């Protein structure tokens, strides 16, 4: 059984189609990145998953439970951290988490609440009122609220947008620990290095359509493009290589190759012009390069 199955999900707001038939599955144990530019439909998809929005057509299941027909077990199975920073100003951090546990039908949850607080660096703030917390601290509480019922599936919608490095590290360490303990994780983020470092599977959305869905390893491997940085003496790029030039920096030239196989040709061209190579660096594309390229390709 898959952790989440999206099946031909369509969402219309009036005339506007925010999701145009999105289908994919997230398997149990995945650390799954859902990527896409602003407005691609990531939050809409997560809202439908959590029952905050209703699909115009299509279906979504969480751990085998349909999110609308079978909404109670479906909601037990998933913990969602919404994108917008929201909080209830009437209560303290601990009260907030106790209430959240109660809504999930859990009466005495203080041991687990303590553990979450400790893992998110919130222990010292347990008795502070929500109003008194900084934005980053409020974000941590939102993460904690999504975890009170130990959901098998955890979904984080841009949890690190605008938060400091310390929180990112604390948060990801905890989420990785939960993933290792068997929880399925889905995240959206604009920090692609985070997705690259953490996730094993990647989906990309654009304008309400799924345009890529792959294991991270496959996605990274399939892309043959390389970036080559050359520092030459004298500092002059041969005419025949100008079309590969991406940028000039640090007294050198950055070239983009479609394939590693193009490298010998470059070296020969350099040699043919009587230039000597003072420095060379070849690098693989990172997820950001692949993302940009995939988005452009799908236009």
């Amino acid at each position, binding site marked *: 059984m898959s952790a989440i199955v999206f099946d031909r999900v369509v969402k219309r*707001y009036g005339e506007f189609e925010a999701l145009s038939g999105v289908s994919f599955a997230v398997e149990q144990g995945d650390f799954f990145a859902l990527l896409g530019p602003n407005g691609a439909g990531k939050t809409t998809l997560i*809202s439908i998953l*959590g*029952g*905050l*929005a*209703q699909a115009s057509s299509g279906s979504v299941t969480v751990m085998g439970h349909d999110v609308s027909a079978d*909404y*109670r*077990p*479906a*909601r*037990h199975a998933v913990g*969602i951290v*919404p994108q*917008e920073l*929201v*909080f*209830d*100003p*009437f*209560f303290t951090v601990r009260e907030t988490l106790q*209430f*959240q*546990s*109660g*809504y*999930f*039908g*859990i*009466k005495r949850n203080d041991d687990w609440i303590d553990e979450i607080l400790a893992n998110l660096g919130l222990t010292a703030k347990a008795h502070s009122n929500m109003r008194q917390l900084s934005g980053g601290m409020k974000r941590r509480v939102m993460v904690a*609220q999504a975890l009170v*019922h130990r959901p098998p599936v955890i979904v984080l919608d841009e949890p690190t947008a605008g938060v400091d490095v310390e929180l990112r590290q604390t948060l990801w360490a905890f989420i990785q620990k939960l993933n290792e303990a068997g929880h399925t994780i889905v995240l959206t983020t604009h920090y692609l290095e985070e997705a690259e470092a953490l996730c094993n599977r990647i989906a990309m959305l654009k304008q309400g359509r799924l345009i890529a869905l792959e294991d991270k390893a496959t996605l990274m491997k399939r892309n043959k493009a390389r970036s080559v940085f050359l520092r030459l003496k004298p500092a002059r790029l041969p005419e025949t290589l100008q079309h590969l030039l991406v940028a000039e920096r640090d007294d050198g030239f950055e070239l983009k190759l479609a394939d590693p196989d193009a490298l010998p040709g470059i070296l020969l061209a350099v040699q043919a012009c009587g230039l000597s190579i003072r420095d060379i660096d070849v690098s693989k594309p990172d997820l950001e390069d692949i993302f940009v390229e995939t988005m452009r390709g799908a236009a």
Partner: protein
Amino acid sequence: MTGFYTLFIKELLRFWKVAFQTVAAPVLTGLLYLLIFAHVLDAHVEPYPGVRYTAFLIPGLAMMSMLQNAFSNTSSSLIQSKITGNLVFILLPPLSYFEFFAAYVLAAVVRGLIVGVGVLSVTLWFAVPPIAHPLWILVFALLGCGVMAVLGLVAGIWAEKFDQLAAFQNFLIMPLTFLSGVFYSIHSLPAFWQSVSRFNPVFYMIDGFRYGFFGQGDVNPWFSLLVVSGFFLLLAGWAYGLIKSGYKIRH
């Protein structure tokens, strides 16, 4: 059950933490009405034979305060949660539609009753109405608050901005409560306005409640009970349907 109970307690704490605004203020307002109207009218009006105007006014004022505060509790809690966005924390858990409905409505009924007891206990210093039928008093207090709590739920779900809610309150709730016979017996009205009053459901809440005190009213309390409970069931069914459909809260 734990889900319902938790949401109920949360809703109670929400108003209790600001009880100065949500309980003390309406009790003071009730007291001011009593002071002004009783001062002006006590010597001139005898609504029922042998009943002083001040004593007559007290149950009506208590009921009016209960109704307005029951409405206010559900509607303002919902609109605040919608506008600040923290309603998501109640929409994401597996609360059933009924738990959601019952927790909001019951908490609002509790606030209504607390305000009612508050208004009674400060106004009793000025006149003590008799208590003819305590059970009628309780039944109409509960049902009246219930109706208004459910109406507040509907208003809170429907409204997207505070001014829409204020319009609902000022153009529907206020006229219905003021023109329901809080300040007078409808028998003192011209025939036309008497029949208009009979289309106001709040009139039956106040009249039935007052019957519990004086053992006399403008209409038979059983008939009032029928009207008010019919109205409650109708509104409750409507509100439940809205919650179930996700109208304006699950897009």
